[in-house]
């Protein structure tokens, strides 16, 4: 009776990080905003480091509503794209070694996106997490929460519907 030996943790981590990086690095607008992703298992936290270019109201100063909306939409799309990719990789249907600039993972397309602005976006780093509330064959519904200093005090939240990417 010999159970299959589990893969070394480093191999698993490398595979997942490589896949996430392929998903994120391919999108110019994510680099333009400077958004980064922190991965813990399958959970992603998006980080929008403060930049002067994200200001919309210089007198307060406050983040531009468009910068906040962009951050939330990026978090929703990558969150959903990652959930799809995670499933494909862990089931062995997609070999992460094949993912690269030549063969980028497909991303879901936004159908609609609604942002609630709950508080002024302060001139400091912002964080966001997406939750896929429903993911069907064609459509998905995703909720995003964003905060700055306190996880419980959201400064914005959003809900969006997405068209699932066609399988290769």
């Amino acid at each position, binding site marked *: 009776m010999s159970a299959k030996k589990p893969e070394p943790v480093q191999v698993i981590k490398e595979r997942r990080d490589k896949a996430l990086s392929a998903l994120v690095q391919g999108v110019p*607008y994510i680099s333009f905003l400077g958004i980064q992703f922190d991965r813990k298992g399958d959970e992603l936290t998006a980080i929008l480091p403060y930049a002067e270019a994200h200001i919309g*109201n210089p007198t307060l100063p406050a983040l*531009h*509503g*468009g910068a906040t*909306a*962009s951050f939330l939409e990026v978090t929703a799309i990558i969150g959903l794209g990652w959930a799809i990719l995670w499933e494909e990789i862990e089931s062995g249907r997609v070999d992460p070694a094949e993912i690269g600039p030549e063969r980028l993972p497909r991303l879901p397309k936004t159908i609609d996106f609604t942002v609630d*602005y709950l508080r002024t976006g302060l001139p400091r780093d912002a964080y966001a997490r997406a939750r896929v509330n429903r993911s069907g064959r064609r459509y998905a519904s995703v909720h995003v929460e964003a905060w700055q200093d306190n996880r419980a005090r959201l400064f914005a939240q959003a809900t969006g519907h997405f068209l699932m990417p066609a399988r290769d």
Partner: protein
Amino acid sequence: MQIDKLARQMIEALPFSKALSMRLEEIEPGRAVISMPWDERLIGDPRTGVIHGGAVSALMDTTAGATVMARPDGPGITATIDLRIDYMRPARPGQRLRCEAHCYHATRSVAFVRAVTRDEEERDVPVATATGAFTFNKTDKGNTAEAGNK
């Protein structure tokens, strides 16, 4: 016109609008038009070169907010309460986007705005539409009587 010049400076000088190279095309009480050029840094789908929805949201939010700021019966400042965007079709890569917004109603404390964004194929279906609510502080100046707001 001086107000026009002031509004242009105000909107185009906002760091984020500037980063996206937005340009104020038209502004009058309750209506604004702002355009934004296609830029490869704004690409959201590397497979097609289509600009990211977030950049379109930023254009819509700025234009919608400008219509509220341009109301003569308000204080000239506002913040977005909520904004919903519907994406009808991908914006064509390489084309300038043009957003037209109308602030069609304002109560004492809320302004309601609709916006439409098109690319250079102006007769085609719009790229996206939006509806939003914005904070507002109605001043008595230029006030008109409104039902349900007394």
